[in-house]
């Protein structure tokens, strides 16, 4: 509490004009600020040594049906206390301009471009105003998240061309890759500028897979939308549905039974295990080390089959519901699970010893794709990628959710920021996940697994929730509408913040190393494109 008071006092003392509101959830403060002071205040929160706020989310909201304005919201996470500070401002009447904070806070660049595409609000002073989500064939003036744009609108096609950044000079040539790739990969476009072998510039062109997820959320009720949250990014089924459920439960003021909290942590750790095992294998595969790949994908398959036996879905789909979980796991199942995981841990330790003893593999991984701590901070990078670059953050420890308040997590942290560090973080987290599941087995209380929602939230009430998925911090903002429907749901997969950082990690590396670097980030295209 003292941390919160400290931060609030600091802000109100430095900027007397700002208005303080009731906090929207635990460990948070909310201020309304005048539009023109936004850059100064956000810059202060970002740079003030005792605050060091990391831009965690930036979203807009079309409030025009209720009052004649758009809302803009900026969420910062303070470095030391992990306290949330939300700044909000209004664009009233026909005002469509807002000051860009990108010149001060680099991490805002994609958020502001996204707001421009989805709402038609223009970030003044943004250095790059090309379209992001809407590709060039979308007609001018289509802004899907405006309330008067219908969710099933049929888009027309127009002519247009995306302007890539070009590097001119003798011997410089461009290598376009994608959107259809040469493996079983999702759709995205990469454009390399190279002179000889080293990459001079990489430009991403994403959002091919944009499915209109946020608009679809607005057509659903608060309790039904779990299904959609599970399908935002298939490999993070549990992470997304859990973050969504947390947000809705805060809105409904719903107490989740302890047993359900433990089961949620269990599902989340199982998802982490499966994906990290797969990633380590895939990274080895990209260095042509097929043996490690075979072993890791074999172990991943064991976890997927385990999931299938536990809840009837290899991706743990349908396990989460608002108010708790929909599947109980009894004592004997849990015991079998822990025994199987003991076996997998022994198995993985042996494979790990083989992997880390391989000198030629180490040679490929070390000093490849370095993401420095400074660039990681500037992009507000999160999750595995952040922890490999010295960003000491893990929502499970910093803002405990589910059962993590009783399950202390040892956070894996490395400083080199290369591919090997990202491999090591995953390796450590696999052991940690198995340890946590053992803890869950030892501590899980008996009791009900779900509580029924008994009330509807007030229209316009909103809240935030964050969950540490296997990839990193997943953030959901849910604003309630009329009759238990959703007015606005902002989804932020860790991929959205980590993708731009990859453009820096590849510089100076050779193109053949790009698949390896990309795999070490292993970001979701679906979760990014929404």
């Amino acid at each position, binding site marked *: 509490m003292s941390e919160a008071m400290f931060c609030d006092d600091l802000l109100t003392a430095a900027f007397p004009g700002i208005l303080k509101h009731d906090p929207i959830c635990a460990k948070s403060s909310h201020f309304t600020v005048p539009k023109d002071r936004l850059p100064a205040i956000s810059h202060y929160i970002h740079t003030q040594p005792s605050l060091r706020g990391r831009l965690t989310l930036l979203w807009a909201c079309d409030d025009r049906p209720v009052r004649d304005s758009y809302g803009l919201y900026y969420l910062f996470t303070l470095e030391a206390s992990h306290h949330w500070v939300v700044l909000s401002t209004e664009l009233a009447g026909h005002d469509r301009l807002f000051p860009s904070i990108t010149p001060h806070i680099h991490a805002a660049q994609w958020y502001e471009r996204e707001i421009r595409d989805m709402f038609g609000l223009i970030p003044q002073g943004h250095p790059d105003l090309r379209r992001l989500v809407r590709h060039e064939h979308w007609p001018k003036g289509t802004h899907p998240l405006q309330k008067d744009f219908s*969710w099933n609108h049929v*888009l027309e096609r127009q002519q247009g061309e995306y302007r890539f950044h070009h590097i001119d000079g003798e011997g410089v040539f461009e290598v376009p890759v994608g*959107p*259809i790739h*040469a493996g079983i990969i999702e759709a995205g476009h990469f454009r390399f500028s190279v002179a000889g072998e080293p990459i001079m510039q990489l430009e991403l062109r994403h959002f091919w*897979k*944009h499915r209109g997820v946020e608009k679809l959320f607005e057509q659903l009720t608060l309790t039904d939308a779990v299904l959609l949250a599970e399908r935002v990014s298939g490999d993070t089924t549990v992470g997304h549905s859990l973050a969504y459920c947390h947000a809705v439960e805060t809105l409904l003021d719903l107490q989740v039974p302890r047993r359900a909290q433990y089961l949620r942590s269990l599902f989340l750790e199982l998802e982490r295990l499966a994906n990290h095992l797969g990633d380590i294998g895939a990274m080895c595969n990209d260095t042509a080390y097929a043996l490690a790949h075979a072993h890791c994908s074999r172990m991943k398959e064991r976890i997927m*089959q385990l999931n299938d036996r536990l809840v009837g879905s290899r*991706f743990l789909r349908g396990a989460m519901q608002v108010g708790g979980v929909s599947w109980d796991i009894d004592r004997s199942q849990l015991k079998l699970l822990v025994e199987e995981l003991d076996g997998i841990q022994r198995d993985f330790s042996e494979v790990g010893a083989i992997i880390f003893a391989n000198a030629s593999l180490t040679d490929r991984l070390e000093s490849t794709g370095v993401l420095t701590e400074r660039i990681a901070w500037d992009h507000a990078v999160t999750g595995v990628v952040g922890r490999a670059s010295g960003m000491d953050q893990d929502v499970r420890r910093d803002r405990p959710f589910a059962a993590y308040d009783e399950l202390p997590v040892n956070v894996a942290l490395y400083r080199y920021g290369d591919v090997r560090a990202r491999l090591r973080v995953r390796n450590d987290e696999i052991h940690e996940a198995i340890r946590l599941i053992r803890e869950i087995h030892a501590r899980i209380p008996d009791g009900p697994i779900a509580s029924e929602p008994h009330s509807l939230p007030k229209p316009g009430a909103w809240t935030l929730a964050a969950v540490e998925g296997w990839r990193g911090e997943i953030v959901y903002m849910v604003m309630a509408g009329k009759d238990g429907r959703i007015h606005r749901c902002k989804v932020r997969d860790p991929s959205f913040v980590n993708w731009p950082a990859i453009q820096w990690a590849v510089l100076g590396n050779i193109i053949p190393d790009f698949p390896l670097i990309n795999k070490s980030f292993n970001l979701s*295209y679906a979760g990014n494109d929404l």
Partner: protein
Amino acid sequence: MFRIIKKSLRIGVVTGRYQKAEQPELPVTPEAQDKARPFKRSLAIREVDTGSCNACEMEMSALLNPVYDADRFGIHIAASPRHADALVVTGPVTVNLERALKDVHKQTPDPKIVIALGDCAINCGIFKGSYAVTGPVERHIPVDVRIPGCPPRPAEILAVLSELQGKNKTA
């Protein structure tokens, strides 16, 4: 070196250690089987993502792991549509990928088979009607085989592919 051999000996053969799929929901039509006849026991697949949530991709990748090992049935993944006999399409076809899908289809040499993998590819699933979705796949290119599921299990995919190859018994 000895460690690696010891490990491999201890693990042994894991191929086939999965629960066999039940009868597929949508059986492969005789027309599709006729179309697949020229490929005999070798099927080169190009996987095309048109906006899936990536769970279908993960299950396609799982087909290649040592447990399912689709290669033993002559099923392999081609790096380019020009090397492919069959396109496996996932996702509800987003507006941004519509043209890419048509291009890929055009680039794949005849004769070819199109397999719609997952509920999204078959009927757009939960994304049906969205402004950003123009699918399902059969609206844009002719579909021969449908594998429903969200996502379908690798064993189910394998069973359908085997049926397509004229091997009625699942592996």
